[in-house]
């Protein structure tokens, strides 16, 4: 009996390598082709003689300057970094309060934040846009940051509440006995201890906001204030007129690179973070 089942799993293995290897090769080839094309000329792309005339780095220069991807990259970096920072500053104390303080309505507030995770963005865009229009916040830096922070709060509170709940309560008791106020107990004791969870959350929020499309599209799709995603989309839309394939592929690589680097460095952390979060859900 055992012989039979062992040989069965053995026959799956070559098939597994074939399928998984094939998939990997496809990804590498596709990304590699786009990379190589971004360094060629448009004519070479169409004739299939990539890189015949050497490396055309001017495609990238064009994408970064004329197509403003350099500016948009900076925009995205500012929007996302500020938003992620502010989210932690607001969500961490709230999560701490929800998990460590006993008060009436505690469960109500927690459920409220949880429900925020389930509300689709579609329900929010129309009134928020109308409100922001009246407040002159459309197409501005603060406008999008408020949006980004607001939409990140429910998940961040949920994530950190779970973490804080798992810590022993003696920690802040000890701090308080030493004469700390609640604020000091949190920022000087609990917050530093939460570093691993905070870092994971920062990575999540960063990636999620960096890849945002809907909010940026509605709130900052102007020539100066777009995010990188919108900038590359603009190149795609202009393709009808410019026909600059090489330049477009350069734009794609620029867009792809930051997340790819993050991926190479942090994939294990990201994956374990997701599985931990999903298990809790």
């Amino acid at each position, binding site marked *: 009996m055992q012989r039979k089942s062992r040989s069965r*799993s053995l026959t*799956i293995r070559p098939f597994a390598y074939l399928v998984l290897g094939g998939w990997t090769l496809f990804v590498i080839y*596709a990304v590699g082709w786009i990379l190589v094309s971004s360094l060629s000329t448009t004519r070479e792309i169409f004739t299939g003689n990539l890189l015949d005339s050497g490396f055309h780095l001017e495609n990238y220069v064009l994408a970064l300057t004329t197509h403003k991807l350099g500016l948009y990259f900076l925009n995205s970096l500012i929007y996302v970094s500020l938003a992620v920072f502010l989210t932690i500053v607001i969500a961490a*104390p709230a999560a701490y309060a929800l998990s460590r303080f006993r008060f009436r309505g505690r469960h109500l507030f927690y459920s409220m934040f949880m429900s925020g995770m389930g509300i689709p*963005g579609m329900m929010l865009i*129309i009134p928020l846009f*109308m409100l922001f229009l009246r407040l002159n916040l459309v197409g501005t830096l603060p406008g999008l940051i408020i949006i980004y922070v607001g939409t990140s709060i429910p998940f961040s509170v949920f994530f950190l509440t779970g973490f804080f709940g798992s810590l022993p309560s003696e920690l802040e008791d000890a701090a308080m006995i030493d004469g700390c106020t609640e604020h000091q107990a949190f920022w000087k004791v609990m917050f530093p201890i939460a570093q691993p969870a905070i870092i994971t959350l920062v990575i999540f929020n960063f990636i999620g906001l960096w890849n945002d499309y809907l909010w940026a599209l509605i709130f900052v799709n102007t020539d100066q204030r777009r995010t990188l995603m919108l900038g590359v989309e603009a190149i795609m839309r202009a393709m009808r007129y410019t026909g600059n394939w090489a330049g477009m592929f350069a734009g794609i690589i620029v*867009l792809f690179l930051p997340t790819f680097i993050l991926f190479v460095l942090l994939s294990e952390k990201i994956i374990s973070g997701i599985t931990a979060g999903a298990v809790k859900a």
Partner: protein
Amino acid sequence: MGTMARSRNRALLMFLAPAVVLFLFMFAYPLVRTIHLSFFRVADLAGTDLTFRGLKQYKELVHTPLFQTSFKNIFLIWSVGGIALFGWVFLFSMLLNSGIKGKKFFRAIIYLPNLVPAVAMVAMWTQYIYHPRFGFLKTVFKTLGLENLAKIQWNSADMLFWGMLLAYVWGGVGWTLIIVLAGMERIPTELYEAARLDGASVPQQYRHITLPLLRDVLRVTFVFWSIGQINLFTFPKLWTPVVPQEGTYTPAVYLYQISFGTRYEATSTADIGKGAAIAVMLLLLVLIFSFLINRLFGEQELEF
């Protein structure tokens, strides 16, 4: 109240208040307002010109052909796409668990598309893989001598929807896969050993051990999948960057076109009230599906 309790309450307030205020502003207010607006004709985004229309708004919407198409599209994505995606996830989970080397590497590669901005993915597929002149699929099929397959015009109106569905499912496998894999890792191996000794084959083990014990994980991923497809916006919208085609309309894309279309795109008339009505319908769908799926899968914790 003693000073300690008072300072404690003050601290509590300061810790919690910013998040709560922001939540009410970002979620509670828009939720109520959207529902409210859905019953009015709203002429422009300044929101000053409102005419009450009540349920007529919803009725008109349901009878709009483009809206019906958009619903048909997400239904197909949810059902056909869902079957393809979960099938692929199960296949990969079996392959990855068959004792191969480099499991973590392959898992990360499959997850990669989930991390990459949607524009990059869409551009990769529509501008390269599906390209009629120098595309990947065309080159591969031609080299293999499959002339008929090489001739497929993936970006044409007929194939547009299916091309998009393929690319979308391809990119979506990763996220579900790592959650399912994590769930599988929590199943004790002794159960499999016992089953093997009893003579169970690998597929039988799958059916009687893996699937039942994965029920919670499957429930969560299925709920997320459903919610994701009901609200699907980014991928289809980017697939046809200039103007949406019939094959890439989803209710969310339609919502965007009729609410923000005049501002950013080439649509001529805005009907923001209808947009709000679509949003309300999507929310209702999300609630219904979540409820039904949770019911179907049951919420008991399985002890093992």
